[in-house]
């Protein structure tokens, strides 16, 4: 692509938008969390989220959630255009309230897991995953 003045301007606008993105996305995830918890207070004990500190590619990031006794665990990627990632609901024959999967992250951001316990309480774990950008894009 030739770098014309128009392109440069577009890129400048693009980065300005990008700079504001996290704020907007954060608001979106707050809303979605509230929808899941009904605004209840969220504790932090009894839930584990395992995610890599650095992901080699944001397209396939392995994560694991574990919340003994939980009814359901919801996972958010706070910086994704759509923060919600997955909801795991456990049945009577689940041997543990845990699951592993692979997710997409649009960039470096917090991954958040929230479990709903049978007594109606909620617990949360979160971790920042740094998403690296390939060497020369090859």
């Amino acid at each position, binding site marked *: 692509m030739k770098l014309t003045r128009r392109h440069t301007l577009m890129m400048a606008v693009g980065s300005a938008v990008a700079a504001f993105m996290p704020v907007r996305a954060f608001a979106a995830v707050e809303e979605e969390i509230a929808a899941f918890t009904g605004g209840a207070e969220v504790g932090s004990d009894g839930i584990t989220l395992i995610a890599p500190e650095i992901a080699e590619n944001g397209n396939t990031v392995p994560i694991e959630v574990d919340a003994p006794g939980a009814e359901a665990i919801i996972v958010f990627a706070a910086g994704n255009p759509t923060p919600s990632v997955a909801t795991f609901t456990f049945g009577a024959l689940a041997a543990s309230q845990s699951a592993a999967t*692979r997710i997409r992250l649009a960039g470096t951001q917090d991954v958040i897991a929230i479990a709903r316990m049978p007594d109606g309480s909620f617990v949360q774990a979160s971790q920042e995953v740094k998403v690296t950008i390939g060497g020369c894009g090859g």
Partner: protein
Amino acid sequence: MAENVKPRVRVPRDATAGEEITIKTLISHPMESGQRKDGDGNVIPRSIINRFTCTFNGETVIDVTLEPAISTNPYFEFQAIVPETGTFEFTWYDDDGDVYTDSKEITVG
């Protein structure tokens, strides 16, 4: 229907009564997120698997809601209790209405 969708599951062949086993599932599916654009700048419509369930003899093990942030070729790993000899049923629900299933029998000896 998305092309070449093929479910794969891994379940042990046998177990003892009440044993906790690990189940792995992988289904080939593009999980088109609805965020991407084609060469002409048109948004490629979302087309994902939006739900996955696993049951044993009709009783739920896990029920997962998937969003577009689940990677291409969705993979899940989870644990199940095996109370008796029976069948695990796996079901994936596609945005386009298609349903893909697989099942695995397990013997309690």
